[in-house]
């Protein structure tokens, strides 16, 4: 049987994903520093409201409230033994919300980063990372997730571990990285590098791309590079609704619904298949994005200049790929010691 996401990908020109989880939960009273995953069992009605926000705004795919639901992250709240319980609950509530909608909606089981550095630069072994992702992923699938969704990853090592966990579970999956440092991920991965990496994996993802990062403009620059290297693979663009600002005790992202509508169309015109938001993207943004995608005819691939004109400037001079990176001033080396 084909999974739900594969089916939708083959039927549709674009799919609308969801927006923010953290920002939305804050508005419902989550306190800074608390683990959002606890609400899957303590405040299920609020988590349902979070999901309904995406569902009712026209999302075709939404992510479960399980971003920090791996053992490494939950340890912080002394809840490392509750990985299965919290992830399963996240997916169960999501399944109910999706099934109640009357539309064909994909429940994507969110797997966020462990927060630790993997070998060789850090202490976390590949095997332990695989185990953590697998534990959370199995529970998400048991709760009714259609697909596993690895997001906000920075290193190839961690993405490889997550991919292996998905393979072990024989689950369809998607994976996105956060490109937030001079066009690359914190660990130096480029957009084209991710495309090459994903294509070489034995258990390939249904779609891959970028999420979070700096702002909507930067994310589309990342997509520009990725499209070239992806050779027709399904790409995901999930950018933040602008830049976070501190307004009257709350975090507010400065991207308006109208701006995010334009972002969505630009992402589609660039070649992204799954389009959504990330931090700061509220239901009203999603409504505007859906409407814009439906009402705006597809146009030619926008140039970087056009992206900048519509969405604002980039945060760094280049996206860290290609010649710009190769031309980076190499230091004059003395003899290398071996």
């Amino acid at each position, binding site marked *: 049987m084909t999974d739900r996401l594969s089916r939708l990908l083959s039927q549709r020109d674009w799919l609308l994903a969801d927006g*923010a989880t953290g920002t939305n939960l804050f508005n419902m009273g989550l306190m800074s520093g608390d683990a959002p995953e606890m609400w899957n069992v303590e405040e299920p009605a609020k988590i349902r409201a979070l999901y309904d926000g995406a569902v009712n705004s026209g999302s075709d795919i939404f992510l479960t409230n399980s971003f920090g639901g791996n053992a490494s992250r939950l340890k912080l709240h002394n809840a490392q033994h509750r990985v299965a319980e919290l992830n399963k609950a996240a997916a169960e509530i999501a399944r109910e919300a999706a099934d109640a909608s009357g539309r064909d909606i994909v429940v994507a089981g969110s797997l966020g980063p462990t927060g630790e550095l993997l070998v060789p630069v850090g202490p976390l072994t590949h095997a332990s990372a695989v185990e953590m992702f697998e534990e959370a992923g199995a529970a998400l699938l048991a709760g009714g997730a259609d697909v596993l969704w690895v997001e906000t990853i920075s290193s190839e090592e961690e993405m490889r571990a997550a991919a292996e966990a998905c393979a072990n579970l024989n689950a369809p999956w998607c994976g996105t990285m956060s490109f937030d440092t001079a066009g690359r991920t914190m660990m130096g991965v480029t957009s084209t590098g991710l495309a090459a990496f994903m294509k070489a994996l034995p258990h390939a993802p249904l779609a891959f791309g970028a999420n979070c990062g700096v702002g909507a403009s930067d994310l589309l620059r990342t997509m520009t590079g990725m499209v070239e290297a992806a050779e027709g693979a399904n790409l995901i663009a999930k950018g933040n609704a602008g830049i976070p600002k501190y307004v009257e005790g709350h975090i507010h992202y400065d991207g308006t619904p109208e701006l995010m509508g334009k972002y969505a169309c630009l992402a589609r015109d660039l070649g992204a298949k799954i389009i959504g938001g990330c931090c700061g993207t509220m239901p009203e943004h999603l409504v505007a994005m859906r409407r814009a995608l439906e009402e705006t005819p597809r146009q030619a691939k926008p140039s970087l200049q056009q992206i900048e004109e519509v969405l604002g400037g980039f945060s760094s001079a280049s996206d860290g790929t290609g010649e710009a990176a190769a031309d980076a001033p190499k230091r004059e080396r003395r003899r290398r010691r071996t």
Partner: protein
Amino acid sequence: MADDEQDIILSELNDEELTLQMHDDLYDGLKDEIMEGVNILLERGWTPYDILTRTLVEGMGIVGIDFRDGILFVPEVLLAANAMKSGMSILKPLLIETGAPRLGRMVIGTVKGDIHDIGKNLVAMMMEGAGFEVTDLGINNAVENYLEAIERDQPDIVGMSALLTTTMPYMKVIIDTLVEKGIRDDYIVMVGGAPLNEEFGKAIGADAYCRDAAVAVETAKELIARRHNSVGS
């Protein structure tokens, strides 16, 4: 081993060559070579303070510049910082013994609810690499942890890090508490983390937002110098 390159014997280099070689070895994250270099210079009668500033601090400065400019990324910087730390482990007790001048002291931590500490660790390491004394509170710090460390260590700088939209606002909680206690202006407060920006730093009442570890070091030096000037005048 590369065919056309010969091994360098560190002890055969003169002081100047060795200093440059140590900058390179730091850049390449070669821990053993850094320790060897530090020991050679100690044997040659260099003061621990000179070794610190001319090899480690200067070498990490080069790493910092390339990190800031998007040439090096976190993995390379971590390796360099680890090499620096190995050299530092030899120098630290000697620096205290010899009463070497101190640049300043920093208390740093990732705020409550946030486990992400990669960036914070980098800042701590680069600050040490620049010659600051650093107390690292680790992850998930409630305001009480900061207060306790401030009381105990009397730092010049308080550094806070957050990587999540859900934990960023907690920085304001800490700054507000310092204000309530009337001690906010006794310290330089610096904040950082991927989702932050300058405007956010201003809005919550920090002295500075630092984009990355290299900028943190530059900013710390500048703010400390400014502070000394104003105190002196």
